[in-house]
């Protein structure tokens, strides 16, 4: 009998994967002995998907005060990250494809190393929380034995390759992208050309342009399948992304034949590695490089690079025998017998079932609350999948799991089997199927409880969903715990991201309301910020918004069109009554977050570890400037030059203040004070000066502050907005130069 998983699974793991895990185990040992530097170890473990979790700096607010968590003194597992503090393990599931056997292993792992919960992420990954680092090598071995790797699940590398969960069964796709997603994943995994990025790189595949499923427009690289003259290929886009500054991807190539798509992305990777920003993490995603160079220049560089790459047979080898990405349908296709259907079936069928391209087969969605399922449910789902669909399971970016190739005649039996284990919740893809990031539950950067709010909204909307008009049930809600958009709030009809507001020395959790984002057309446009509402008033604000829409919409007007027609100001009026926060002695519940019992604080906010990222004070504060500049652009578009000009000025002030605050924390919010401090500290000392442009960018703020325009027209406002964007950019560079100068030599 084996006494270790390493021994037990020897020969059942890919040899290279097994070696890598052994190496990682060795590195854990070295770090424990203090023989490996903490920053290096941190990046090492991140590249294996071993992430930090909230409070792992050993500090936690318990509702009364911030207390030290008395862990044993051991070497840290990264800067300010305590060894014994539990962490999160991210597990990559390429294109969301997961088998019954894999689900069973994931279930076992969650029981033995985590909290018996599998969490599906917005990028089709699986996450386990509260994992101890010393358990991770065995956890990885057990995954490797069923063909799953956690390599590059975090860190500055190629993250999970996502794809439309309907790939292969969708009626409108050009062809099934799954085998190509799989090929890309295997080609780039551990590839030398993807090891030197300044930041993470997320690829996505979609089978059709107008649908949502692949969300390629918000990805670092996106591939949309196309067939031209009988030849398979992809439209390739680059430089999309959400985050604090959302970008839509730009078209790198209208058509790249499948023979050419791997070398092309390799060329993209090499250009990004060579020219992408490395020092300033806030500017390091490829979207900033594409924006800086312009897509034409970027395209030219990629084409040049392509010529220099030595031939690699793997570019086309996979085409001879495409990777297997789904099993055979075990049941013959047969039409549904409409008689004698179980109770609840029609509602479930209406929202959770979709006909496939293959006649007689359907896709059934398991609507998971907040993306969570228990180990018992996962095992039951594995059995159900074996019985009805073979290996045809996929995780989705809406944090659900779909079963593909369900014979339509089996749908009632499938429904009953799912219902027995609590997996038959209706409403998939509707307003109750809320997407959310982990937020304050486990993320170090979370500001407000996104999951708590999602659970609350799901409960409330679920109770009355039967009575809601279809216009409302069809809306999408997405929530992020902070401005970092992991909950994809920009893409929802109604999106939220967490922030906080101070009221009389106390802090109340809030959410910024983002309305009118577009989910279809692969996330074709982003929503607009409408203002912050206290967390506890969000459910009422949602009711008010949805009711106003249901009553005020014209014919089949979409929510997005409705918000546009109403205009930002009128929509804001709807949520305005919910923006007020009662005093603490009037209603203390406003100062406690959802799913929590402690008085709210942001005092124990950790330092982010996303890709080893360190979010500085400047990083947090400059966000305000960026969102003001964003609002300024909106105002400009809406024909409000005065507002745009003023917002642009305020954006510059916020960026200047963020810089000043890195040295002088107590600077007030008075424009005069900010400008005075900025001028003395950064302008007169020439620290703000650009190597080429000199004091030009700094002068934008000083000039506008000294001489406000008497009258603002469109041109003036437009210039000011442009200036504010350049000023913010210069503030980022200035901060990067200064922090590079004070950082210890690596």
């Amino acid at each position, binding site marked *: 009998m084996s006494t270790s998983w390493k021994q037990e699974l020897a020969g059942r793991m890919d040899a290279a994967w097994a070696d890598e895990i052994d190496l990682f185990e060795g590195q854990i040992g070295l770090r424990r002995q203090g023989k490996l530097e903490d920053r290096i170890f941190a990046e090492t473990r991140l590249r294996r998907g071993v992430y930090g979790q909230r*409070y792992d700096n050993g500090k936690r607010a318990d509702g009364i005060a911030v207390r030290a968590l008395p862990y044993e003194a051991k070497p840290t597992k990264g800067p300010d990250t305590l060894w014994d*503090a539990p962490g999160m393990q991210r597990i990559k599931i390429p294109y969301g494809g997961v088998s019954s056997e894999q689900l069973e292993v994931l279930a*076992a792992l969650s029981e033995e190393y985590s*909290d018996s919960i599998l969490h599906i992420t917005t990028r089709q990954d699986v996450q386990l929380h509260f994992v101890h680092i010393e358990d991770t090598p065995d956890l990885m071995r057990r995954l490797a034995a069923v063909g799953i790797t956690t390599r590059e699940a975090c860190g500055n590398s190629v993250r999970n390759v996502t794809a439309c969960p309907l790939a292969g069964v969708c009626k409108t796709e050009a062809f099934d992208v799954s085998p190509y997603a799989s090929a890309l994943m295997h080609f780039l995994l551990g590839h030398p050309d993807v090891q030197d990025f300044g930041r993470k790189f997320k690829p996505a595949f979609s089978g059709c342009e107008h649908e949502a499923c692949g969300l390629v427009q918000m990805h670092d690289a996106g591939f949309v399948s196309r067939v031209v003259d009988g030849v398979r290929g992809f439209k390739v886009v680059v430089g999309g992304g959400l985050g604090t500054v959302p970008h839509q991807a730009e078209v790198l190539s209208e058509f790249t034949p499948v023979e050419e798509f791997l070398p092309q992305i390799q060329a993209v990777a090499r250009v990004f590695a060579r020219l992408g920003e490395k020092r300033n993490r806030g500017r390091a995603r490829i979207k900033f490089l594409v924006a800086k160079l312009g897509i034409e220049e970027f395209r030219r560089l990629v084409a040049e690079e392509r010529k220099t790459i030595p031939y690699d047979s793997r570019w086309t080898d996979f085409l001879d025998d495409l990777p297997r990405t789904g099993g055979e349908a075990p049941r013959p296709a047969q039409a549904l017998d409409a008689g004698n259907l179980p109770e609840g079936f029609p509602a479930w069928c209406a929202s959770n079932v979709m006909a496939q391209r293959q006649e007689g087969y359907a896709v059934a969605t398991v609507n998971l609350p907040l993306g*969570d399922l228990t180990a*018992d449910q996962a095992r039951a789902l594995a059995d159900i999948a074996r019985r009805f669909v073979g290996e045809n399971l996929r995780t989705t970016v809406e944090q659900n799991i779909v079963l593909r190739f369900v014979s339509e005649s089996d749908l009632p039996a499938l429904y009953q089997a799912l219902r027995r284990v*609590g997996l038959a919740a209706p409403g998939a893809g509707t307003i109750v199927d809320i997407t959310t990031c982990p937020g304050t539950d486990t993320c170090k950067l979370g500001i407000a409880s996104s999951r708590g709010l999602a659970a609350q909204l799901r409960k409330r909307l679920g109770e009355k969903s039967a009575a809601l008009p279809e216009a409302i049930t069809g809306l999408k809600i997405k929530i992020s715990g902070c401005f970092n958009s992991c909950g994809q709030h920009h893409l929802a009809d109604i999106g939220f991201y967490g922030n906080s507001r101070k009221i009389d020395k106390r802090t109340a959790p809030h959410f910024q309301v983002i309305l009118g984002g577009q989910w279809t057309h692969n996330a074709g446009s982003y929503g607009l910020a409408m203002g912050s509402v206290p967390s506890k008033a969000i459910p009422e604000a949602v009711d008010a918004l949805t009711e106003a829409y249901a009553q005020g919409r014209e014919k089949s007007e979409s929510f997005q069109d409705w918000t546009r027609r109403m205009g930002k100001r009128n929509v804001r009026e709807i949520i305005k009554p919910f923006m007020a926060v009662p005093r603490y002695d009037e209603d203390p519940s406003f100062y406690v977050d959802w799913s929590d*019992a402690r008085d709210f604080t942001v005092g124990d906010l950790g330092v982010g570890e996303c890709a080893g990222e360190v979010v500085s004070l400047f990083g947090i504060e400059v966000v305000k400037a960026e969102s003001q500049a964003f609002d300024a652009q909106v105002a400009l578009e809406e024909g409000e030059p005065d507002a745009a000009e003023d917002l642009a000025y305020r954006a510059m002030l916020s960026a200047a203040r963020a810089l000043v605050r890195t040295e002088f924390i107590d600077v007030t919010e008075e424009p005069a004070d900010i400008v005075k401090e900025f001028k003395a500290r950064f302008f007169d000392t020439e620290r703000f000066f650009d190597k080429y442009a000199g004091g030009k960018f700094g002068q934008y703020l000083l000039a506008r502050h000294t001489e406000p325009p008497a009258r603002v027209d469109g041109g003036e406002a437009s210039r000011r907005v442009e200036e504010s964007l350049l000023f913010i950019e210069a503030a980022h560079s200035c901060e990067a130069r200064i922090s590079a100068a004070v950082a210890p030599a690596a």
Partner: protein
Amino acid sequence: MTPQRIAVKFFVSPDPGAAVDVEPFIGVFHRFIQQGALEGLLLDVADYAHVPEGPGVLLVGHDVDYAIDQTAGRTGLLTTRKRFGDLPLSEVVRDLLRKSLIAIQAIEQDEKANLRFATDVVTIQYLDRLATPNTADGFEAARRDIAPVFEKLFDGGCELSRAHGDDPRKPLSVSVTAKEVVAADALLQKLGGPAARTVARAPVQTDWDIEVDDLKALRDGGSDFVLVDVRETGEYETCNLGGQLIPLSSLPARIGELDSGAHVVVHCRTGARSSRAVKLLREAGFENAWNLRGGILAWIDRIDPTLTRY
């Protein structure tokens, strides 16, 4: 062989199958952390109330997790030991039962929790597919290991049976049923070790409590602060921490002796008088005045047992 993890579950009484709203446990468990109501390092609370038949609300600890678990539709307290070094398994099980019963007592004493537990049925889960697979042999080995623990615990005898069936994917589980009902108190006495309330830290006394560990850190770190002792002179002579003696009764008259801008820590014997003193000081504009929770007794218990206890 020792498993990766081991868990025990006691069920709620009278009907584990009845619907239970677990949401109040978010508050209950946060309070347990604030009060240090359970042994060991407690980290955080996770809310899984949205998952059907899941872990409900989870109190995450460093060594032990506590969940108001609703697996298979049966609500109970699931206590999971996550690491236990080289202790023999029987010791681990005894300790886990003790921790679980202490938590049950704490929950039963909490008005907001409003749950009662039966202590005559308990399930033990071995969470390790390699060391303790869910097989007939695995069950026999487990029975040999832990039967003596339960026979000693339940005077009237007990029965051990295999729970959760023989699905090899599921953890090996043993169900223990006592022939006679024994109360949690009596079980705890048999298990030995410190009991719930003496281990627990004193309850919160003011909004401005600090722990004796915090005071120790202040002293060790050479911080600039004033320690005020509001007991009577005779008590001070019995034992003291070297604080400035201002009996509570004379504090209003002597408040001027203290600098309202200073960092002040106040203590008495148990924390009761110092709570009032801190409130007085706060009202008088002392923004940095703190109460030593549990008073000098807590200090003696946890920091310096050489002082005279009275």
